[in-house]
């Protein structure tokens, strides 16, 4: 997980419908994966043209313990990677220009790109702030060929925003995503129908989106190192080891897992984490920080009219080991005091009498919108709290930051 100072991590996930692996071989779907190159850093270079062709690193500078959130290709050439501690990045690339993250600008550019894509493709689903899946099935007649379509998309995004994209074209979303990774920077790779197996087979299993380190480890223990080997495994063996996910893994390795793109994205979680300027052992200080994080998450939830059914907490200790848990709470809520009540209870045993803490995080998960049905026994009280937080949020918006602060 990347440590970002002061950033919301809204996990907007594409909804995968259950018929995910039901699409037969030889289906004639065509998906594009459009990925913005070094997005945060590129936006900074556009905002300030003087930074063009210079190594730019976003994130980290406002705290001496931060990490790299994004690096321009000029900086990447020096070996700087995303998630690298700031000090290390500085050592690798002394002339790099460090900039604080400007999430408002990134959101603005992301929206601009979305608008362009929405005009050029019938179905667009945003995967995250800097990547989108496009379903261009049947659009080859409009553009001539898919390559022409990709060139047009690249050209339109560049002309309008100055940002560069890499595009992967394939018969399934995951293969398209892998192709775009290989196409970076500013490239395009098309995996023609029928050659998915050839493209995938030499790659390590973890290269496939959806196969993380845990499943990768289990596959390696079974002697399966590449996607080619995975594709050759008998169905029943995979089923025995991975349950219903087994056949799905195999179809992934064959490049056959397509799913319907759900255009309406849903926010699945809202979280915030922060690194302390120095390692902390005092629970009271951690507790105060937790409260501040929850205040921000709560406000974001209320802004989007969402309620958390589940909350997660994270503690990273000075030695970079991690502890945390995630639990479902009895009633969905977005009230700070209730979220804090649970989070505090979960986090205290992980902090008190343990190692010094480097970072803490809080996530509101399993988000639901408010049930429209009002409750006889609870509505009156919760309406009052709703009004209280609403006024609090308005107040915070009107007053300059830090001019007042709620205490526990």
């Amino acid at each position, binding site marked *: 997980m990347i440590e970002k100072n002061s950033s919301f991590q809204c996990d907007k996930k594409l909804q995968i419908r259950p018929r995910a692996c039901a699409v037969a071989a030889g289906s004639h779907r065509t998906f594009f994966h459009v990925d913005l190159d070094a997005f945060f850093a590129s936006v900074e270079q556009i905002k300030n043209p003087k930074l063009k062709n210079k190594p730019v690193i976003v994130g980290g500078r406002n705290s001496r313990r931060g990490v790299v959130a994004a690096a321009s290709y000029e900086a990447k050439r020096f070996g700087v990677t995303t998630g690298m501690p700031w000090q290390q990045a500085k050592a690798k690339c002394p002339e790099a220009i460090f900039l604080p993250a400007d999430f408002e600008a990134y959101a603005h550019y992301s929206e601009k790109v979305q608008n362009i894509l929405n005009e050029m493709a019938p179905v667009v689903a945003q995967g995250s702030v800097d990547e989108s899946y496009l379903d261009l099935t049947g659009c080859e007649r409009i553009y001539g060929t898919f390559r022409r379509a990709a060139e047009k998309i690249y050209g339109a995004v560049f002309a309008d925003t100055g940002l560069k994209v890499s595009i992967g074209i394939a018969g399934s979303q995951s293969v398209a995503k892998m192709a775009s990774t290989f196409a970076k920077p500013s490239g395009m790779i098309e995996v023609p129908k029928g050659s998915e197996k050839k493209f995938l087979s030499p790659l390590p299993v973890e290269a496939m989106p959806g196969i993380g380190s845990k499943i990768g480890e289990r596959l390696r223990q079974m002697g399966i190192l590449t996607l080619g080997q995975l594709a050759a495994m008998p169905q029943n063996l995979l089923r025995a080891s991975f349950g219903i996910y087994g056949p799905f893994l195999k179809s992934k390795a064959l490049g056959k897992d397509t799913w319907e793109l759900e255009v309406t994205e849903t926010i699945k979680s809202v979280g915030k984490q922060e690194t302390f300027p120095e390692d902390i052992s005092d629970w009271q200080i951690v507790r105060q920080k937790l409260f501040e994080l929850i205040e921000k998450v709560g406000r974001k939830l209320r802004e989007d009219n969402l309620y958390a059914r589940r909350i997660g907490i994270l503690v990273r200790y000075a030695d970079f080991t991690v502890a945390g848990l995630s639990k479902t709470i*009895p009633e969905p809520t977005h009230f700070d005091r209730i979220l804090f009540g649970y989070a505090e209870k979960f986090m205290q045993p992980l902090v008190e009498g343990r190692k010094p803490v480097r970072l803490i995080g809080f996530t509101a998960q399993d988000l639901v919108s*408010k049930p*429209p*049905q*009002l*409750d*006889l*026994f*609870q*509505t009156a009280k919760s*309406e009052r709290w709703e009004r209280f937080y609403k006024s609090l949020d308005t107040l915070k918006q009107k007053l300059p930051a830090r001019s007042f602060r709620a205490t526990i």
Partner: protein
Amino acid sequence: MEIKIERNILNDGLAWVQSVVDRKTTMPILSNVHLEAKGGTITLTATDLEVGVIGTIKAEIIQPGKITVPARGLYEIVKELPNQIVQLKAAPNHWLEIKCAKSQFKLVGLDANEYPALPKKSGGQEFNLEVDVLMEMIQKVDFAISTDEARYNLNGIFLETGAKEGKTCLKLVATDGHRLSLSERELKTKVPLTQGVIFPRKGVAELKRLLEDKEGDIHFWVGDKQAIVEKEERQLMVRLIDGQFPPYNHVIPQKQKRVLSVSRESLTQSLRRVAVVTTDRSRGVKFSVSPGLLEISANNPDLGEAKEELPIQYKGATFAVGFNAAYFLEALGVLEDEQVVLQLNDEVSPCLIQSEFDRGFTHVIMPMRL
């Protein structure tokens, strides 16, 4: 154990007890019915530990004794037998032989000594209630019982007594948190119930079966944790819900700003039609009220929209409020009135429905946000 009994009598007895047997029980013996032959009768018992039922039927006892056998299996067999004398005989290793005319069956049973003991009356209060009054009261509230396991204290009917103008009255209340139904009746007899009890949903269903087609009085015994209801040769034992019923009196609105009156039949018909386009989950419809006119509308992005107008008696400001159509239809279904009076306040406050016909009926429905 060995008995002889007429097939029809045995079939009736089994039909009464077998329904409480839980198909998914973790204790195998709870799938069984307990048979005990003693002194000219045979007693059939079945329980899922929450609800227990006992039926006593006359039989010719050749040899007293007891046994347990799978309830469904025995019931299915007896149901198919010709209407002649059935002979039930225990065989070694808890087998039960069933003979009738030319049919013979053998069922695998379990040791009757391992069957859980059912509660015995000790302390508590006893009283009688009229069958038809109780049945009517149950039908006016039981549809509002919550099915949400997380709100276990709402998973039943709250039963309590109160005094009204010097007379004892009985109150039955059910709520799922979204609506509440209350039925109140004056009683001719005294009911010494010192505090309210929550009668669980499954027990209510069995109680309704017990009351079906019956007349006269029914006997209640209510203890701290259990209740036993008796009617003739049948007994129903219920484990009461151990929880606090919410202070329901607080949520029954006292003074409502807006009062309108509408034909019950036309409101029911309109709601049925408009509800067709609502989503299965929310069933949300909008009531737009203006002087003399009620417009009911609904829309569902997946299907379409609907709108219907109804004449009403109402003088006052125009307003709109959303409701779950299903909740309204269920409430209207238990009213006998020709005109139904809806008392409302604002779009986040409950709607109160009372009856001219049955003064003891009170129904409250919370609105939906639209």
